[in-house]
């Protein structure tokens, strides 16, 4: 090969409901060429294959699949997620697929309903979701360095998951998009992207500092580039007699969970001003997550840096659901960054 060429590396797995939290190691994605790769985008595509319900709701499968991405020995994803066994947070290498970035593609299709609970030969909607992590700086991958995805059914989403409703099995495809380089790039350093996710449980009114702060453990400073946030919700209400739906819910049902973010200098990133008109029932409070992270776009570009051992912190203040509702919410925020690693 004597010129650069576009390349996509893909692998897919069929996930069974039965393997719940098991890892599915897609080591097949290891590059075998002796060429350098310049990766610009990392993707996850989820195809439920069959109906999850007879509703036309937009179910967001990005909440149902956790992803772990690594290049060589470097984990590109870390997280701190609340789980039933660790209500205040558990350190993990997986993040929900939707936190990779905005849902760039969603397709509804009408399919024959094979879910046993519905009458035979009825039809229902299925939704395929595609999520893309578009890298701020291209990721240069040396020859014979594995790009490895792991996917699993979300363990946290079990909180919201109704075992009788979600498809079994479904397909998850992962991919890396970029260029195969003809010659070794002349680099003094290469950019290493990173995504860190926070999420506490939010099924009570406890004010939670989300696990622990995100700390830069590297010698190099981290360039912070994006905050992403969204909420998975079990609607609680029944639609057509069925309680369904885990979905990105910022817009459809605004999440009243209040958030505060503190930067490396321990300053408030978000400053709420007194409301207009001023009233006792309308206090000057942290802002609701849904008012900042909007549906679909769900992210805010930032430009900051984090030196070694500096931290970013997030605090969420869940707002209790009304007594009549059995809403469960799982707010999540991710911080995207990269650092320059000397070669």
């Amino acid at each position, binding site marked *: 090969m004597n010129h650069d060429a576009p390349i996509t590396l893909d692998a897919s797995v069929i996930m069974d409901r039965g393997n719940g939290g098991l890892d599915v190691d897609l080591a097949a994605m290891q590059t075998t060429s002796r060429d350098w790769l310049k990766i610009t985008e990392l993707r996850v595509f989820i195809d439920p294959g069959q109906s999850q319900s007879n509703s036309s709701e937009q179910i967001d499968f990005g909440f149902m699949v956790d992803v772990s991405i690594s290049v060589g020995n470097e984990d590109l994803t870390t997280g701190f997620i609340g789980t039933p066994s660790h209500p205040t947070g558990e350190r993990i290498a997986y993040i929900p697929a939707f936190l990779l970035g905005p849902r760039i593609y969603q397709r*509804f299709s009408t399919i024959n309903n094979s879910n046993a609970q519905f009458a035979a030969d009825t039809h229902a909607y299925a939704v395929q979701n595609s999520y893309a992590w578009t890298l701020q700086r291209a990721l240069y991958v040396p020859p014979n360095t594995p790009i490895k995805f792991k996917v699993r059914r979300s363990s946290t989403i079990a909180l919201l998951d109704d075992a009788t409703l979600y498809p079994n099995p479904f397909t998850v495809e992962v991919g890396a998009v970029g260029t195969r380089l003809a010659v070794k790039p002349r680099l003094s350093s290469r950019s290493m992207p990173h995504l860190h996710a926070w999420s506490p449980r939010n099924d009570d009114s406890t004010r939670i500092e989300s696990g622990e702060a995100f700390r830069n453990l590297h010698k190099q400073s981290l360039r912070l580039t994006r905050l992403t946030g969204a909420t998975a919700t079990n609607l609680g209400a029944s639609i057509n007699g069925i309680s369904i739906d885990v979905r990105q819910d910022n817009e459809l049902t*605004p999440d009243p969970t209040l958030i505060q973010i503190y930067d490396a*200098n321990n300053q408030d*990133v978000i400053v709420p*001003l007194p409301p207009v008109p001023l009233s006792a029932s309308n206090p000057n409070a942290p802002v609701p997550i849904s*008012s900042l992270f909007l549906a679909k776009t769900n992210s805010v570009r930032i430009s900051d840096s984090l030196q070694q051992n500096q931290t970013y912190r997030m605090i969420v203040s869940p707002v209790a659901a009304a007594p009549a509702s059995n809403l469960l919410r799982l707010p999540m925020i991710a911080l995207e960054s990269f650092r320059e690693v000397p070669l």
Partner: protein
Amino acid sequence: MSNESPFFVQQTAVLAPNQSVSMSLLDNLVREKWKLKEIRIVCTPLDSTGQAALPFNPSGVAVDLDIANIFGVASMLDFGIRLQSTYCTVPRHVPAELLRSPFFDSLAEPEDAANVLTDAPPQRAVIWTFPEPLFVPPGAKMYAELLFNAADGANSFLWMPVDGEPTSAVGLQVQVTLIGNRTTEAAPAKSRIPYATTYRTPKLAIGADGQVQEFRAQDFQLQNHCDETLFVQRLTAYNVAAQRMPTTLKYSTSQGKYINRELAPLFELHSNGALNLHTILDKNEFIAVEGEIDSVPARIDMPDNAGGADLPSPIAAFYEQQAMFGLVGYREVDTAALWGPALVSPQTGQPISDIRPGLKEIVDLRLPEVRTYSPQLPFPLSTNRKP
């Protein structure tokens, strides 16, 4: 420490119909230099329970109005920005829906998604991205002007509950968020400040068969009212009843040259809300728009609700329609003239911009006013058509 840490400011307003407020978004808040990148506006209609529907009310959950179709909610919020004494919107408010920056969140158009049929979104969000990051010196004043437009807007016919009578919002909750970051950069000589103006057609009842209403904007309505040259980024248009209502229109320049030759459907010209223009308007130049609105819904696009009671046609939610047009762009002004001279700290006598950045200090609100302003309003309005 970082010199560019992010900084978001949010304020919430609850508006009654026809109520207007001026939000003081930046009013001697911090002694820092900022660069503002965008404004996010989230509109939530409130039902008769009023404040109980507030998302952050500890006793309640999100608004649940069981609304068949409210994707026009941002069209009944009129929104404006004022920098010091300079208005960025002429007239003072422009329908928030028209300020939306093109983005892939056009995916969120409810009429294209199945969710409109059973559980429409109670919120409508607009992101207005600035043409370039706007430098804001310490102590600068910035206001958001809000009006719940019940007189001219769409609220009186906005939605119909799935199983009920037509309902109007008794209140509108609006969250306005400034997205920006701190900066240590010096003030640029010129600042690009956003600009928007609007034209609305009269209302037209839906359903009167064969009734066609012609409309034509006055010359001063989609006009450059400023002394400076206006860079037009896009024309935006919205029919409050449905983007696919049979509205056809034709744009032309103030010299009479057409932009589109024949009447074209609104949803075709503005498939994602915006028609990117990237042109220049000198002082008093304008964009003319004329067209027709048909009172009969495009039934082929919007099949009626023959199948079931819980799948109402979006059209059924409306009795009237109205088209709105916006002209969105920016102009360049001298930064010094926009913000005035640097504020001086009464404690130290230093210019406030010299205070260490990143150190948040609240400036005394009783600070004597030392600025001089060059009021930009009222703008001279002209109906002179250029040859």
